[in-house]
């Protein structure tokens, strides 16, 4: 019964989405406040209905109701409750439901907190958001119904793919979707601005909080996915330039570019057309990613379904929104008014360089991802574009962008002084270069990337810190006064500094790649094996029984110079319900680096084949991403960016004619 309520709620949500699309749009055209206000209520109702549907599906999974096809195929009564819940989005239908739920959350956020917005802009943005909802709700109801019943119901479910039975499934998809889908609202605002043919600095102020939310979640979501792949796949790799990863990286690159250009627009009223273009681009990449991952054109652990109708349907949605928005852009963008002037050497100029590098990097990733697919369709020839391609193209462009980042961050708006900035950054430049040279000498020329990334990381971190100090302190200023000035700096400035610092930290983590060690060995009980500065000794091999698996665990001791520093327990898990084995790596963090041991099935004589890695600084890769996301959150907390604050301040000055709901 609850399942049918969920299904019914989803159908009603489709109706609400239709109302949200048509009524406020019409209201905005004829200038009817009442019709425009419908958008707000429809968005809230739609959100409530989708939340009911989602709760119904979660309930079915928790209760192990195997009369629901989705539950029977992807769940099992022996699974721990956390995986029963996470299993809701560990399959195609459920993950699409999560997709629309997040879409509706963002629609509801605009409805709730968008009081300070011009009424027409809000009505049009909600209408576009409703249209996206409409398309995806139709997709779910017509091709991927999660509430389909199974007759007769089996006694036991098929179990969730053991690779997905990991806390990562509870964390990575929701975060990633909050980012991915969050760009929909930016897209909706861009489309609304184009429909009205008017855009200004105020628009940038409305959109920036949503962008920060989406961007921060996307950053942390990608990092979570990368960390999950790192510890679960047993190869010690954290980024494979796999098309599915690229699908999430492209919106991130476009979104990062947008975040920077929208700052120019907000502060200087410039780069308007370009900013709108990026807003459309970021969400187009989100849609493209959804298509690549969900349609089955790619082969990966993320591809669950292979019903060809789904691929065609998503492709149609993709074509509609991308072609539609770019057509609108081509038609309306020339009418937008030109913005302010700035000198090439200025904060604005630096942000243009940042945008150029990021979007070009994004284009190379797009090319490398789609080229094999296109070639296969055209010639039947199957190829893979490997990591070297992406490292050389996108990697080189992004490293250049990282080098430019501290300069841009220190330049003044409108007209900057490059020489002055270079003088300020002298310390960072010198220390960074010294680090790179020392690293290269240490490695003896074995890697160019590692010392370069390390020097660059140090430069970016110091560059961010120097700017913070320079803003607060001038020579001759007392410590107390400097502290007072530092406290007076806007939070969004600290957010930017922290995000840049995070980029530097991630670079340092990446540079650790060149300094690591790896070995493949057959471990004998009591015989130590060297890996980097550590030695690893196998203690025993034990059989254990988990809730829905059995595992062979190989406890080991990690020693440094004869002193035991850690105990690790890599394992092989055997899942009976799917006859599958997974590898649980043994991990231990030591000074930001990690000892990483993955084992194969223990042999009959008690020996264990293993891959052992020493990965110095590797945790910094994800800590850096966390710092970037935190930087986004900090900017978001800046009171100047809050709608409410703006409204209160203005309301004090002159009463606003608010529509009476």
């Amino acid at each position: 019964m609850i399942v049918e309520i969920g299904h019914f709620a989803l159908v009603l949500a489709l109706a609400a989405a239709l109302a949200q699309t048509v009524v406020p749009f019409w209201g905005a055209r004829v200038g009817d406040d009442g019709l425009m206000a419908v958008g707000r209520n429809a968005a809230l109702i739609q959100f409530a209905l989708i939340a009911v549907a989602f709760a119904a599906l979660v309930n079915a999974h928790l209760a192990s109701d195997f009369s629901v096809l989705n539950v029977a195929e992807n769940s099992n009564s022996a699974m721990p409750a956390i995986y029963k819940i996470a299993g809701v989005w560990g399959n195609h239908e459920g993950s699409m439901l999560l997709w629309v739920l997040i879409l509706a959350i963002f629609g509801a956020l605009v409805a709730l907190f968008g009081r300070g917005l011009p009424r027409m802009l809000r009505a049009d943005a909600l209408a576009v958001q409703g249209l996206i909802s409409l398309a995806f709700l139709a997709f779910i109801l017509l091709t991927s119904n999660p509430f389909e019943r199974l007759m007769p119901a089996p006694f036991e479910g098929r179990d969730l793919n053991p690779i997905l039975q990991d806390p990562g499934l509870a964390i990575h998809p929701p975060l990633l979707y909050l980012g991915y889908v969050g760009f929909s609202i930016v897209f909706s605002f861009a489309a609304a601005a184009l429909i009205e043919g008017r855009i200004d600095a105020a628009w940038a102020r409305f959109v920036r909080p949503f962008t920060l939310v989406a961007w921060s979640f996307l950053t942390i979501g990608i990092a979570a996915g990368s960390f999950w792949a790192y510890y679960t796949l047993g190869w010690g790799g954290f980024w494979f330039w796999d098309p599915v990863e690229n699908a999430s990286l492209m919106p991130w690159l476009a979104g990062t570019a947008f975040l920077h250009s929208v700052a120019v627009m907000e502060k200087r009223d410039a780069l308007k057309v370009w900013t709108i273009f990026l807003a459309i681009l970021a969400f187009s990449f989100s849609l493209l990613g959804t298509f690549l991952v969900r349609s089955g054109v790619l082969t990966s652990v993320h591809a669950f379904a292979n019903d060809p109708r789904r691929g065609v349907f998503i492709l149609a949605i993709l074509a509609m929104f991308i072609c539609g928005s770019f057509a609108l852009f081509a038609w309306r963008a020339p009418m937008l008014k030109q913005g302010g002037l700035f000198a090439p050497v200025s904060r604005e100029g630096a942000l243009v360089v940042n945008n150029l590098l990021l979007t070009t990097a994004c284009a190379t990733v797009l090319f490398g991802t789609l080229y094999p697919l296109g070639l296969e369709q055209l010639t039947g020839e199957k190829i893979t574009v490997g990591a070297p391609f992406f490292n050389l193209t996108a990697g080189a462009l992004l490293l250049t962008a990282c080098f430019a980042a501290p300069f841009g961050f220190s330049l003044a708006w409108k007209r900057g002084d490059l020489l002055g900035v270079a003088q300020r950054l002298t310390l960072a430049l010198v220390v960074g270069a010294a680090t790179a040279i020392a690293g290269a000498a240490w490695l003896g020329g074995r890697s160019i990337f590692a010392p370069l990334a390390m020097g660059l990381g140090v430069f970016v971190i110091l560059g961010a810190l120097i700017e913070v100090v320079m803003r607060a302190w001038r020579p001759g200023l007392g410590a107390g006064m400097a502290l007072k000035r530092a406290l007076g700096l806007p939070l969004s400035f600290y957010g930017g500094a922290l995000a840049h610092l995070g980029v530097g930290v991630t670079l340092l983590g990446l540079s650790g790649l060149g300094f690591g060690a790896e070995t493949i060995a057959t471990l004998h009980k009591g015989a130590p094996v060297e890996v980097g500065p550590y030695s690893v000794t196998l203690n025993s091999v034990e059989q254990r029984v988990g809730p829905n698996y059995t595992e062979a665990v190989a406890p080991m001791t990690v020693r440094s110079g004869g002193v035991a520093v850690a105990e690790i327990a890599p394992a092989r898990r055997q899942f009976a319900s799917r006859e599958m084995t997974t590898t649980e790596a043994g991990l231990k963090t030591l000074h930001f680096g990690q000892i990483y041991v993955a084992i194969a099935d223990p042999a009959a004589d008690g020996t264990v084949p293993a891959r052992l890695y020493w990965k110095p600084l590797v945790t910094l890769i994800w800590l850096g991403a966390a710092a970037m996301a935190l930087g986004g959150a900090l900017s978001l907390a800046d009171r100047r960016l809050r709608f409410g604050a703006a409204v209160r301040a203005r309301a004090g000055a002159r009463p606003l004619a608010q529509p009476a709901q």
Partner: protein
Amino acid sequence: MTRRGRRLALIALSLAVVGVAVGLGLYAMSDSIVFFYSPSEVIQKADRPGERLRVGGLVKAGSVVKSADERVAFVVTDGAHDLKVAYRGLLPDLFREGQGVVAEGVLTAPGEMRADTILAKHDERYMPREVVEALKKQGRWREGEAVARP
């Protein structure tokens, strides 16, 4: 600087960045693209030792030989032709005789390769799509046997 001058500078800068990207891309394309072949196609098309490729097929039953230091040798077959693969390292969790596998590495001699990456399926229901297609080409695929994709 005038609006026109500024615009020209911007266009020049964009062209420079795009030009560099295209140059890097073309350079990278020349040696980082890997072709995917079935064992039969390897025999027909790729006979140059040192060529990097990806081969997909089934692990021939009874062909897996493990020796010291985690060295493994096995035969990948598409039913019509065989290819010997040598590999050092841990095999993926779902590597089994008679099951689909994708090996990436370098051709050492005609009909032999040294693999540095071995991919098997992620899930018992799936088989690498490339393998399915390689088998279909040889007419060795029975529909309904397994569903594609790792």
